Structure formats: C-alpha cells, structure tokens
C-alpha cells in the first residue's frame, strides 16, 4: 500500500497537475530560469497562495531589486495583497550577512528566522550569489543541505531561485528534491514560454515541456494535453444509438445519424460547405443536448449572420443558452490552452453536440508538429468518454487536383467517421458533392451525392451522375 506525501498547492493553475499534486511539504526545490522567464512571479504566486491558505511565508533576497520595487511590480498582478506584507509574508534581505560573514552565517540566520516566523514556506532568491561566495562545490552542497535539513525538520517547503543555467550534474541539482526550469524560447518568429520539471523526488511528474503564459493573473500553466490525459478522465461508456445531423437527407446516408459520442472528420477545400454543415448540425442543440461551436475562422456575430442566410438562424439557441460559440482567431495560440479551453467548455455545460471549425486551428498552434497525433488522440478520446458527438472540419489543401490529401497520416485513424465535401467541375459548372468514406461500425451509402442549399440549411440531393475522378474535383464523364 503506497503512501501519499502531503502537498503544498502551488496556487498556479496547471502547475499542480504537472507536479501530480503540488510541491511536497517540507521538500526543497530549485526554480531556475533566465532573467525574465518568470521566477519571481512564480515564487510570489506560490507565496501569496500559501498566505491566503493561512500559512506564514519567509521570502529572503540577496542582491536584487529593492523590496519596494518588487512590490510595485507585483501590484500589477491580481494575486498581490498588500495586507499580507509583513504579516503573512515577510520579505527580508540577508546580503550583508552573506558578504561579511559567509554561507554558514546565512544558514544560521535562515534557521533562526524560519523558526521565529513559524514559516511553512521559505523562498530564497539568490542561489547564484551563494554559489559565488562559496569556495568549493562542497560549500554549496553544505549550504543547501543545512538549509534543507532544518526546513524539512520543521515541515517548511523551500524554493531556491536562481538564474544560473545549472546542469543536471551540478551540486545544487543533486541536493534538492526537485528542479523546475522556466524557459522563454524563441521558436521561429515567436517566443514561447515553456517549463520543465527536471527532477521530482518523492513524486511522479509530467515530464517534458509544458507551455505557460504570464498575464495579470500571474502564471498559468497548460500541461501537455497528451501527457495529462494519457488516459481519459472518466471511463469510456459507449452508448448505442444515433444523433441526427439535422442536415436534410444526410442521416439516411449514414444509417440514421452519427453514432453517439463519435468524432467525425468533415473535410474538403475552402468553400465546399463545411462551416454551413456544422451550423446545420448545431441547429439540433437543445437544453437536453447543449451545443458548442469551437472555431477559428469567423466571429460569433458573423457565424450567426451566416446561419440566418443559411435558413437555420441559431440566435434563439444562443439566447436560450443551448448553444455557445467560442471563437479564437488563428493568430499565435497555444495548443494546450486551446485543448483545455475546449474541454472546459464541454464539461461546464455538459455539451453533447460539438462542431470544431477546424482542426487546422489546433495544428497551427503546435510549436512542435510531431506531437499532433498524440494530441488529437488524447483530445478525441476524452471527447468520446464525455459522450460528445463531434464534427470537426479540416481544410484540404488543394481545391482541385489529383491528390486527395487526408489529414496528416494517422490522424484519420483516430477518427470514427469521415465525410468529404467537394466541388466538382462538370459541364462548366461546379457541383457540390458529399460522400461518406467511413462510418465506424456502421453502414453508409457509398454513392456520391449532390448537396445544395435549401430553404432551411443544406440538403442532400440526388446521387451524382456517373463520372470518374469526382473525388479530386476534376470529373470526367464515364467513357461511353
């Protein structure tokens, strides 16, 4: 029977998940990162969360900005509470002791003050200075060991902050229980903030990089979705039954509707009608079947106008609360934040009908493309387990052409159903065509059908006349 060690919550959204519960009480951690990476904001966020939970915090600095300047900077953050200063969180400097008396004297001072303040969290900002003062690596190790041991004895968690680029074999790393490294990386043209837990004694942690943001609320960490949801959060309980697409004539093509909780990829080139089909699908939203549109291309207002033009005005659903539209412009996004926001919106309202317009928005937001298969696997598995029937659109690269490039290889196999929309050039006209390529565990009509805009949304019409090459958009009549 394994034991769970008591934890100190970090107070940083997403960070407890990365540490699989938060810091371990009485343990010591190094928080390292270049200036500007966010160590001060990180450690103060932890401090103010601890103070809010009724704990005493001792924040020790060496040679840094004055405390007054620090408070000015922190006052721009939501978590800052001036009343906590000098009461729950005590900020002191021990530089003179370090300079005039050395490391051992600093240790004594820290020990006495931690006890005096009855602190259960000690933040020590300036490990780099301590290292400079040390004559040997052993001095550094001794310093850390002495501070740690007393802190552990009184159950005080310690965060050592440093801007040194300490390697894995450094004396500092070997002494502490955990190491959190903050990066501000340049990837292509943009900077991406990422953190990594490089060591975590006494607990597992989510390894690798996790992206984070610094806003007026301080740090928010977005754990890598495929690491956090390696397995679904609840058990997958598949339900038999179908969900109507609300597109006239389409349900008949796919055996009565989409299987409940399935994920459908709707792909086709620009202008083929993907968004329209999705809006039609969302017309099926109701209080019992809450709907969600998670899009990247058009604003909610524009989408509502489009739905009106289509003949399926969605305003009523939005006003009644049956439908929510979340639209994120396809600018510089963080993929795990998108995933988190989507799942949060699904869970918040118990969403049953989801239209993602389109998966490309997630793809573009990944700073490391090779992880997309795992990301989509985690995302779609979670949506299935939550019983959400999802249609996700995907834009085909070529409007016309011999290659029908399905989404990045292996992603199609993650999805249950594949529906393709094409514009086919025939007799000097473009005909809109829909075809079903796959319905997992179900029958479907394999014929290509024309699809048009009726008075109330899309309408599947006659099977397309016999031609070859329709799938590429460049059809040729069959040889007579």
């Amino acid at each position, binding site marked *: 029977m394994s034991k769970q060690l008591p934890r100190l919550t970090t107070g940083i959204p997403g960070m407890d998940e990365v540490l699989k519960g938060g810091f371990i009480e009485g343990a010591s951690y190094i928080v390292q990162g270049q200036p500007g990476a966010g160590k001060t904001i990180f450690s103060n966020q932890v401090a103010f969360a601890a103070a809010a939970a009724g704990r005493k915090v001792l924040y020790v600095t060496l040679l840094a900005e004055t405390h007054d300047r620090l408070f000015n900077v922190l006052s721009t953050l939501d978590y800052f509470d001036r009343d906590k200063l000098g009461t729950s969180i005590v900020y002191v400097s*021990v530089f*003179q002791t370090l300079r005039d008396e050395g490391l051992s004297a600093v240790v004594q001072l820290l020990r006495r003050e931690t006890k005096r303040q009855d602190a259960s969290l000690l933040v020590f900002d300036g490990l780099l200075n301590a290292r400079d003062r040390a004559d040997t690596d052993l001095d550094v190790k001794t310093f850390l060991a002495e501070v740690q041991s007393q802190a552990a004895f009184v159950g005080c968690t310690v965060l050592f902050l440093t801007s040194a680029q300490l390697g894995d074999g450094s004396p500092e790393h070997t002494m502490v229980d955990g190491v959190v490294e903050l990066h501000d990386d340049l990837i292509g043209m943009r900077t991406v903030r990422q953190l990594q837990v490089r060591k975590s004694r006494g607990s597992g942690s989510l390894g690798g990089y996790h992206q984070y943001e610094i806003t007026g609320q301080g740090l928010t960490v977005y754990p890598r979705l495929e690491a956090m949801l390696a397995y679904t959060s609840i058990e997958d309980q598949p339900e038999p039954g179908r969900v109507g697409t609300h597109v006239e004539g389409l349900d008949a093509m796919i055996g009565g509707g989409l299987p409940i909780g399935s994920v459908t990829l709707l792909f086709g080139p620009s202008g083929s009608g993907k968004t329209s089909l999705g809006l039609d699908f969302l017309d099926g939203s109701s209080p019992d079947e809450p709907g969600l549109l998670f899009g990247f291309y058009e604003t909610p207002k524009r989408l509502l106008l489009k739905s009106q033009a289509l003949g399926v005005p969605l305003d009523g659903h939005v006003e009644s609360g049956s439908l929510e539209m979340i639209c994120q412009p396809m600018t510089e996004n963080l993929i795990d934040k998108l995933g988190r926001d989507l799942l949060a919106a699904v869970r918040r309202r118990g969403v049953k009908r989801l239209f993602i317009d389109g998966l490309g928005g997630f793809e573009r937001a990944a700073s490391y493309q090779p992880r997309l298969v795992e990301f989509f696997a985690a995302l779609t598995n979670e949506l299935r387990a939550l019983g959400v029937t999802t249609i996700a659109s995907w834009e085909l690269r070529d409007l016309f052409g011999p290659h029908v490039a399905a989404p990045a290889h292996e992603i199609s196999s993650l999805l249950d159903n594949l529906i393709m929309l094409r514009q086919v050039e025939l007799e000097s006209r473009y005909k809109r065509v829909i075809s079903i390529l796959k319905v997992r565990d179900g029958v479907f009509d394999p014929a290509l059908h024309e699809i048009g805009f009726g008075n109330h949304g899309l309408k599947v019409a006659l099977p397309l006349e016999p031609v070859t090459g329709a799938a590429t958009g460049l059809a040729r009549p069959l040889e007579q």
Partner: protein
Amino acid sequence: MAMIVVAEDEFLLGDMLASILEDEGHEVAVAAHGAAALDLMRVHKPDLLITDFMMPLMTGLELATAVRKDDALKVIPIVLVSGAQGSIGRSHPDMFDAVLDKPYNAKQLVLAVQKLLDDRGAI
C-alpha cells in the same frame, strides 16, 4: 553633526541612506537587522534611530519596543521608513516619532531628520 544608527536589511538602501546623511555632515552606523541595531545603539547611544520594518531576527516594531524599554535609550527619537507597514508605524506614535513611506526622497528624509534633531537640541 549627529550620530545616527540605521537599521536596514536591504544593503543598497542602507548604503544610500548612510550616504545621504553623511553628506549632511552626520555620522552613520548601519545594521543589517534589528538585533544588530540594538547592539549598535547600546554602544553608540546615538542621537537618532532610523529603522526599516521588515528585517530578520527583529522587526522595526520589536526594535522600537526594545529601545523604549531601555532606560538608557528610551528618549532617542525613532524614524520608521517602510514600504508596506507605514500604517503600523502611524498607529504607534509612542514608538515612532516620524514615519516615512518608501519610496521617500532624500530631501524629505533630511528635513525629517533635521526637525527631530532640532527638537531634541542636538545640532
């Protein structure tokens, strides 16, 4: 020309404070925390004490309390210079003769110091 003890854990601030006061012709001794400041006061019997609030081992309030309890030191005027605890200083007028909020400017400080020294009869 007076003898002033400064209690300030932030090295840069203590240093700057000492410079400002020395420029005015005073003699200054800086302590890095309250306990060391109390020792300095017992040794020098200064004309004035300027203290920070948050310091290791002994806060500014604890220092002022200790000074007021000591018969040899209790009449020495005490100035509190604080970033966040100015209000605590002002609610203890028996402890602190003047309270300056950080950031203060040099002129304000010099004037406050001069006034207290004049009141006390020191030059």
